[in-house]
């Protein structure tokens, strides 16, 4: 990768000292590496000097995985619910407790009045109301007639799915009453318990990296400008590609450290089994981290101030996050939006991470995704290398 981006470093020869004129590629590469090491060392030293930043780099992902892992939970659990049981028979109580046994609803309000509970639902105090009519027993023996009504606050779409799912428990109650009705058998691959944390943790590795990596490098170049270091830096023989590679190299290590934190904390906290190879996961992460760092650097060469850089980073991150397939199913997006989403490394990485961790896929299985991320990395690095000017005008 390094040699690839190193067109002509032998140009730095010193004509005044013929002995030092060593046009061999080795000497040129050595000098180039030396210059790159100047940037790498400096970046690491600056990073360690800013304890706050360092703490954020390592602490933030941990905080995020815990927070997101628990909070971004598309499972509906223990939704506070109301119960109106006008039948009040052993069978009706059995129905209510069967629903509660699913853990989706908790009947925290009991009332004789439906409209009173609907008012509470409007205020958000409860999310669903189960109404069992007085003729519940008679309905049980009347095939095809709904025995009871579940009223759902559908303002959050995930609740619809959840309640549709528990509605399937109704027939089993009726089954005990001797009735038979066909139900749809649902079988879930990869997440048989349908725990959303299993879907979220792999993608979260990408989302958290995407967030921190872009923010950190988006200020990398503009910070030199704001602190007045740029005017000196551009009078040194450090070339553009050396500067850019030197700036991302330390963050690649930090990115991999973050992968480790997020992955292991996530797997352990949310009991996510890993089907694929860890090496594959790290290799994929490496390329992905480099690509996101490149995007950050690109932003940095456009921004005039650190404030602008952060704004730019946020502007980029939001669509990346929303279109990645992490928040909403990728398949549901219009084609045009999907094409846009393909331009973001995160979209591909979410797929790769899920593939490796959940489906046990190898990098070879997802070659297209890996090529896409690698290609995006090259483009993302080319932008700052070509855009950064060692001039002030």
């Amino acid at each position, binding site marked *: 990768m390094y040699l690839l981006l190193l067109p002509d470093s032998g*140009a730095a020869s010193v004509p005044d000292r013929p002995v030092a004129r060593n046009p061999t590629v080795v000497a040129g590469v*050595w000098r180039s590496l030396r*210059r790159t090491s100047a940037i790498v060392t400096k970046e690491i030293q*600056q990073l360690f000097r800013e304890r706050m930043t360092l703490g954020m780099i390592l602490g933030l992902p941990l905080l995020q995985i815990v927070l997101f892992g628990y909070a971004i939970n598309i499972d509906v659990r223990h939704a506070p619910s109301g119960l109106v049981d006008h039948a009040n028979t052993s069978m009706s109580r059995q129905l209510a407790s069967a629903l509660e046994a699913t853990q989706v609803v908790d009947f925290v309000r009991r009332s004789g009045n439906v409209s009173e509970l609907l008012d509470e639902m409007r205020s958000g105090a409860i999310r669903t109301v189960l109404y069992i009519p007085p003729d519940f027993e008679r309905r049980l023996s009347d095939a095809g007639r709904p025995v009871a009504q579940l009223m759902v606050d559908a303002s959050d779409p995930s609740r619809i799915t959840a309640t549709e799912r528990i509605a399937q428990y109704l027939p089993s109650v009726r089954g005990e009453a001797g009735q038979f009705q066909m139900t749809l058998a649902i079988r879930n691959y990869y997440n048989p318990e349908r725990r959303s944390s299993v879907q979220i943790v792999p993608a979260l590795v990408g989302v958290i990296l995407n967030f921190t990596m872009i923010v950190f490098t988006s200020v990398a170049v503009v910070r030199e400008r704001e602190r007045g*270091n740029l*005017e000196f830096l551009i*009078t*040194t023989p450090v070339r553009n590609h050396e500067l850019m590679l030197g700036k991302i190299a330390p963050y690649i290590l930090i990115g991999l450290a973050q992968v480790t934190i997020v992955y292991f904390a996530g797997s352990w906290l949310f009991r996510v089994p890993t089907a694929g190879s860890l090496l594959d996961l790290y290799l994929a992460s490496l390329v992905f981290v480099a690509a996101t760092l490149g995007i950050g650097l690109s932003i940095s060469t456009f921004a005039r101030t650190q404030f602008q850089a952060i704004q730019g980073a946020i502007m980029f991150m939001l669509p990346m996050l929303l279109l990645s397939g992490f928040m909403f199913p990728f398949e549901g997006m219009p084609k045009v939006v999907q094409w846009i989403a393909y331009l973001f490394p995160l979209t591909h990485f979410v797929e790769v991470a899920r593939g490796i961790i959940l489906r046990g896929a190898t990098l070879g299985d997802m070659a297209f995704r890996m090529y896409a991320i690698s290609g995006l990395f090259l483009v993302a690095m080319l932008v700052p290398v070509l855009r950064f000017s060692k*001039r002030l*005008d």
Partner: protein
Amino acid sequence: MNGNDYAISCCGLTRRFGAVTAVDDLNLDVPRGRIFGFLGPNGSGKSTTMRLLCGLLAPSAGHATVLGCRVPEEAEKLRLRMGYMTQKFSLYQDLTVIENLRFVARAFSLGQRRMKERIAANSALYQLESLHSRLAGTLSGGQRQRLALAAVTLHEPQLLLLDEPTSAVDPQSRRDFWDRLFELAEQGATILVSTHFMDEAERCHRLTFLDRGAMVREGAPRDLMNRLEALTVEIDTEAPRRTRALLGTQDWVRAVTQLGNRLRVMLMPDMEEPAEKVRELLGEADLQAVVRRTPATLEDVFVAATGFGGSQRA
């Protein structure tokens, strides 16, 4: 104009920023191994000229050759052979002194051994050893400046461009700094230095006065003072303000500068007995004063060069 005789030569060098012409048709030949001074009020184009010569800015017109390289086209080739010290401290304030020095050494691709030697040598020369572990941001003005000069000379450049290097430095540090510059020049380096200070200007081998982007005087300090197109007298008086007001009305007085109870007066160069004429004038006005002829200073040259504007912009 030959790139081998001169460290820097530029011809018709011009740089415009929108409607403002920062550097206007500058012709300059800086001989090798000399300390060459740039003088001029703020905004006269000193910094812009240095940036043009470093290849940090492209000229709007004209061209410049530095150490035989055309700038800005061949600026990258030039980097290893020249050093540029910016007006503001531009090393990393959140790195220590030694970290900054190592950074610069690596950036100029000095090998491990040479890096050690050069840092040791320059640390001794610029008294930085005891400061190695200090953060650059906590250094005093003089210490920073020593660090900056140590850093910019690590790779032993043949040409140094120093943009107002002593503006934030106490007088003793300034003297030490200039001693270092003379040592560097003796070792063969060419130094282009801009300054506000006349005592510093006087120490340069050659001087260029810039005003509003154009070169207005050029030569050795002694020659410039001898060639001054004005006569100078000094007046000691108890009533400097009244005296000054009176002199200001005379068409043979070119400029008056007050220095405490003294007045420094520049008169038309073709006068026969300047001190006598001033005495006469003051005597008629009943002003007690001691008037004497004095040799010209660079300050006078500066005032003359910037058009006798009555300004004390230096």
